[in-house]
């Protein structure tokens, strides 16, 4: 990258973070009334919203009904004003379809779908502002929304990215770092059982470096988990206090 140093000589990144530092995470649960579960998350400048409807009876396409488990339906969309260039198709383009599919696969793996046979769970995520790590923000927001909806999961799913730029692994890649063209890894995992649910990488990385990057991403997921878990506990105790007070 000409003229743009991703890591300074002192070891700081463009936004002032160290290499293994996450961006600031802000989260809110139960933000909307119409949905069964909802959550909003900010990871640095990436802002995502997730709502969950269900479990309810399967709508359109009776053929989709599964007799032993619930069907998970995900839709990912990006607001037209979320990126630097206006997006002409907020949803339905190939990239969004892929994202929807990845989300569905992730959540089918963690939601205890066997408990709701012949029903459907809808997860809608919306990116309001994009600054790298869209998939991660979506997964984290959706996890909170599913918890808010009271749908049983085997564990949280937390997602995080890690890149390999200028011969050093970097955690939680921002948009500028993403567009530098270096390889980065997206990992979604269940932090308690340390099982990886989804792992994606779309460029070349030397096999020797893989372990370092994966370790960093795993650590990132656990850090995200710590933040999310605190939010969930705060939210639950707050709502409990409200319920007992009235």
């Amino acid at each position, binding site marked *: 990258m000409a003229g743009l140093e991703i890591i300074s000589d002192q070891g700081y990144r463009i936004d002032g973070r160290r290499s293994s530092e996450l961006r600031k995470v802000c989260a809110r649960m139960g933000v909307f009334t119409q949905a069964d579960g909802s959550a909003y998350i900010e990871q640095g400048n990436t802002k995502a919203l997730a709502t969950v409807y269900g479990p309810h009876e399967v709508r359109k396409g009776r053929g989709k009904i599964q007799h032993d488990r619930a069907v998970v339906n995900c839709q990912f969309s990006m607001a*037209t004003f979320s990126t630097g260039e*206006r997006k002409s198709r907020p949803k339905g383009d190939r990239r969004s379809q892929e994202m929807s599919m990845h989300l569905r696969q992730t959540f089918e793996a963690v939601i205890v779908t066997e408990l709701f046979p012949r029903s459907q769970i809808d997860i809608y995520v919306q990116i309001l502002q994009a600054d790298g790590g869209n998939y991660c923000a979506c997964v984290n927001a959706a996890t909170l929304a599913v918890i808010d909806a009271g749908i049983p999961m085997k564990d949280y799913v937390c997602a995080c990215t890690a890149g390999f730029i200028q011969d050093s692994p970097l955690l939680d890649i921002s948009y500028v770092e993403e567009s530098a063209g270096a390889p980065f890894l997206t990992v979604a995992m269940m932090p308690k059982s340390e099982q990886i649910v989804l792992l994606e990488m779309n460029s070349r990385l030397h096999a020797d470096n893989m372990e370092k990057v994966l370790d960093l991403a795993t650590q990132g997921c656990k850090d995200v988990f710590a933040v999310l878990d605190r939010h969930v506990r705060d939210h639950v105790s707050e709502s409990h206090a409200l319920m007992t007070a009235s």
Partner: protein
Amino acid sequence: MAADFKTAQPVEYYRRFLKEDVRPDGRELGEIRHTTLNIGSITTAEGSALVKLGNTTVICGIKAELCNPTAEEPKKGFVVPNVDLPPLCSPRFRPGPPSEQAQVVSQLMADIIENSGVVALEDLCIVEGKLCWVLYCDMMCLDYDGNVVDTCVISLLAALKNVLLPEVTVNEETGSPVTDVEKKLPLNIRKCPVATTFGVFDDHYLFTDPTNEEECLATGVLTVVTTEDNKICCMHKPGGTALSESRLQDCINRALTRAEEVRKLIDETINSVER
């Protein structure tokens, strides 16, 4: 018990409340839900605003692009509104192409922008016949609890007031536009349209700011849009119960006072945001 009664006979349930001049959520007939406004929260947009009217939430983001004006109107730019009611905001909306309601509200927004003259399209022209701005105003409902029109209009107006456009000059030699990102100018907002929606119940009771439940039960709705010089710039009454002239006048008067309140709220919020 009350909940059972409501499920079994929603209309009768509602009628009993209205007889006592009160609504199930505790509001009086003419009372409007609490309105909150957050301006400039989306930094990727040229202007943005998030509005909550009770539980109804709408976010409006405005993106500006450069384009060529049409041959018929070489001095005019474009304002393109679009309203999205995604399945995310309410269980009544299904995934797929925009619903009928979303298209109706989008068209209503386009009419309001044109009729009120909130932005003079000539202001968006940079070089006559060559270059102009197109403002894409995307309004997205995040939580649907009735009265989405009023909420959209507030978010649109607040976001337009938040817009900062970079100064554009045309390079004489190459003829290509040069944007000066350092120098950003606000848009000239010429009029401030504000909408107020009324619901009619049982052909008799008239109430403001219907919630989702009330919209479903209402026998008719009416939207009045007024500007700050007390002019009506748009009226929308899609069928339903017929209203007498005097009742219509009541609605207009109520709309005028409401519009004043909303303009004050927007101005206060804008002033509180540092630019």
